[in-house]
C-alpha cells in the first residue's frame, strides 16, 4: 500500500520492515487526522454563525388587500423585508403577455404559469434577478422600459408585462413567491 508518508527509508536503528508501513506510521496518520477533524469542528461553527439567525428565519406571511387596486395599477408592499409587487394587469397587458412566443424568452414561462388562476393579478418580488435592485414601473409615471413592464435602473434590465426578463443582464424572470387567494379581494403571500 502506498502510504504517502516520507519515512519509508529503513532506519538502521529499527528492525527491518521490507517497506511495509509500520504501526508508527499509522499513529502519525491517526494523530494528524484527529487534529484535522478537530480543526474542522472548530471552523464549522465559526462559519455557520454567519448564516441567518433564528429570528431572521422565523417565517412570516403577508396579507395583501386587492380591493383598492384598479386595472393598470400596482402597489409595492413588503414581504420578508423585500419589496413585493402586486399589479392588476389591464386586458391589453394580458393580451400582450400572451402574444409572446415563449420559446424566444430567456426564461420561458407563460403568464398563466406565473399567476394563480386569475391572470390579471401579477404578484412578484420586486427584486431584479440581476443584482437585486428594485425595478421601476410599479408606480405610475415611472419608466416601464420598452416592453411595458419593469425597468431596472441599476444595469438596465427590462421586463415585460408578465415581469419576464426580455433584455439586459438579468438571468431570470422576477420571482413569483408562494401565495393563495384567501378571499376574492385578499391574497396571503408566504
Amino acid at each position, binding site marked *: 500500500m502506498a502510504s504517502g508518508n516520507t519515512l519509508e527509508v529503513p532506519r538502521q536503528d529499527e528492525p527491518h520492515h521490507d517497506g511495509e508501513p509500520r504501526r508508527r506510521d499509522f499513529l502519525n496518520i491517526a494523530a494528524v487526522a484527529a487534529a484535522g477533524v478537530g480543526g474542522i469542528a472548530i471552523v464549522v461553527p465559526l462559519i455557520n454563525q*454567519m*448564516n441567518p439567525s433564528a429570528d431572521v428565519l422565523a417565517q412570516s406571511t403577508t396579507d395583501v388587500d386587492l380591493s383598492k387596486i384598479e386595472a393598470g395599477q400596482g402597489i409595492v408592499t413588503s414581504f420578508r423585508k423585500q419589496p413585493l409587487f402586486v399589479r392588476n394587469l389591464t386586458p391589453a397587458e394580458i393580451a400582450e403577455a400572451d402574444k409572446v412566443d415563449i420559446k424566444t424568452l430567456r426564461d420561458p414561462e407563460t403568464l398563466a404559469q406565473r399567476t394563480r388562476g386569475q391572470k390579471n393579478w401579477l404578484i412578484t418580488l420586486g427584486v431584479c434577478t440581476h443584482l*437585486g435592485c428594485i425595478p421601476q414601473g410599479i408606480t405610475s409615471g415611472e419608466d416601464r422600459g420598452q416592453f411595458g413592464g419593469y425597468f431596472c*435602473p441599476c444595469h*438596465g434590465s427590462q421586463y415585460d408585462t408578465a415581469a419576464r426578463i426580455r433584455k439586459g443582464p438579468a438571468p431570470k424572470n422576477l420571482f413569483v413567491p408562494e401565495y393563495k387567494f384567501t378571499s376574492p379581494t385578499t391574497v396571503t403571500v408566504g
Partner: protein
Amino acid sequence: MSFPWAKQYEPKSGFTKWIDERLPLPRFVYGAVGAGYPVPRNLNYFWNFGVLAGAALAIQIVTGIVLAMHYAANGGVAFDSVEHIMRDVNGGWFLRYAHANGASMFFVVVYIHIFRGLFYGSYKAPREMIWLLGVVIFLLMMATAFMGYVLPWGQMSFWGAQVITGFFSAIPVVGDTIRIWLLGGYAPDDAALNRFFSLHYLLPFVIAAVIILHIWALHIPGSNNPTGVDVKGEQDTVPFHPYYTAKDGFGLGVFLFIFAALLFFAPNSLGHPDNYIPANALQTPAHIVPEWYFWPFYAILRAFTVDFIGIPAKLLGVLAMFGSILLLFFLPWLDSSPVRSANYRPLYRIFFWVLVADVLVLGWCGGSPATPLYVIISQISAAYYFAHFLIIIPIISRAERPTPLPNSITEAVLAKKGGTSPAHTALSGSAVPAE
C-alpha cells in the same frame, strides 16, 4: 537590499548598546528605512506614492478607530449615529469627512502607485512578489472600502450592499447560499450591517500586515528606478535617510495640502448625495452608482448584457469584473520584455497611455447611467482592457525593439544633467529615450 556599501548600525550610547544586544529593533529600522538602506539616486516624484499610501492607511485607521467610538452598527440607529457624529461629537464633522475623503485620497494615490509600476516595469523580475502582494492589498482595500460605505446606512449604502453581495449569487449552484451566508438573511438588514462593521474594523489590520510583507519583498531586490537599470555600484545610490525621508516628507506635505483643501472646502464633492437619504428597502434610487474608485470595474460588470456560450450575462459580468483585477496577478508573466522602463520601450509606451485613457473612459461610463450609448462604449473599452493585457502586451513584448539603455543609473543622471545627449525627462511619462 543590503548592498555591500550599506551603512551599518552602530549603537553609540550605553543604552542603545544594551538594547542592540537584546532586541535589535533600532538596527532593524536603521536598515529598513534609515541610512542603512541604499536607494537609487534617480527616483522621481512617482516614487512618493508608496509612502503616501502608507500615510493614507494610517489616517484611515486612526480616524476609523475614533469614529467607531461614536458609531452604532444597527439599522435603526446607524444613520442617526453618523449625524450625531456630525453634529454633536467634538470635531466629529471633521473626523467623519476626513475618513470619507481619506478613502478617496487612498485610492487616488494607490491608482497612481499602480500605474507607476505599470509604466516603469516595477512588476518584472525580480520584483514579481512585490507586485502580487500589491494586488492582494488592492483587493483588500476594495473590500474594506465597500464595507465602510455600507455603515452610514444611507440609500447608496443599502443598495450597494444589495448589489455587491448580489455578485456572489451569480456563482452557479452555490451562489444563493453564499449570498445568504454573507448577508445573514435574504436582504441587507441588521445582521449584514453588524458583520460589515466587524469586518471593516478587521481588514485594515490585515492590510497593514500585507503591507509589511510588501515592504519586506521590496527590500530584497531594492527599489526599481525610472531607468529600470539595476544598481551597479555605490555611486548609483544614496542612503534612504535623509535623502528620501526628506523627499517623501515634502511629498507628504503636498498630499496633506490637497487633502485638506478637499476636506475643508469640498467634502461632499466625491460622495453621492443619495447617501444622505436613510436606507429604504422599498425604493432603489433612480441613478445608483458606486463610489468613483469602483467606476471602471462597475462599467466592466455591466458591459455584459447578453448570454454567451451558455453562460448567463450576469455571471459573465461578474467574472469579467473580478477577472479584470485577477488578471493583474499574471502580468509579470504576460510581459516577457527584459526591458523594464517604458522610457526605453517606444511601442509599450504608446499602449500604456492608451490603457490609461481606456481606464478613464471606463470610469466615466461606470459613473454614467446604463443607457445604450454608455453600454456600447463600456463594451468596447472593456474589450480593449482585456486585449491590452492578454494580447497586446505579450505581442509587443516580443516584437518591440527597445531603445538603448544607459549603462548605469549614474550615466543616465549625468547625461540628463550635462545635456550632452537627449534628456531623459523621467519625471514626465513622455520621456525622450536616449539615442
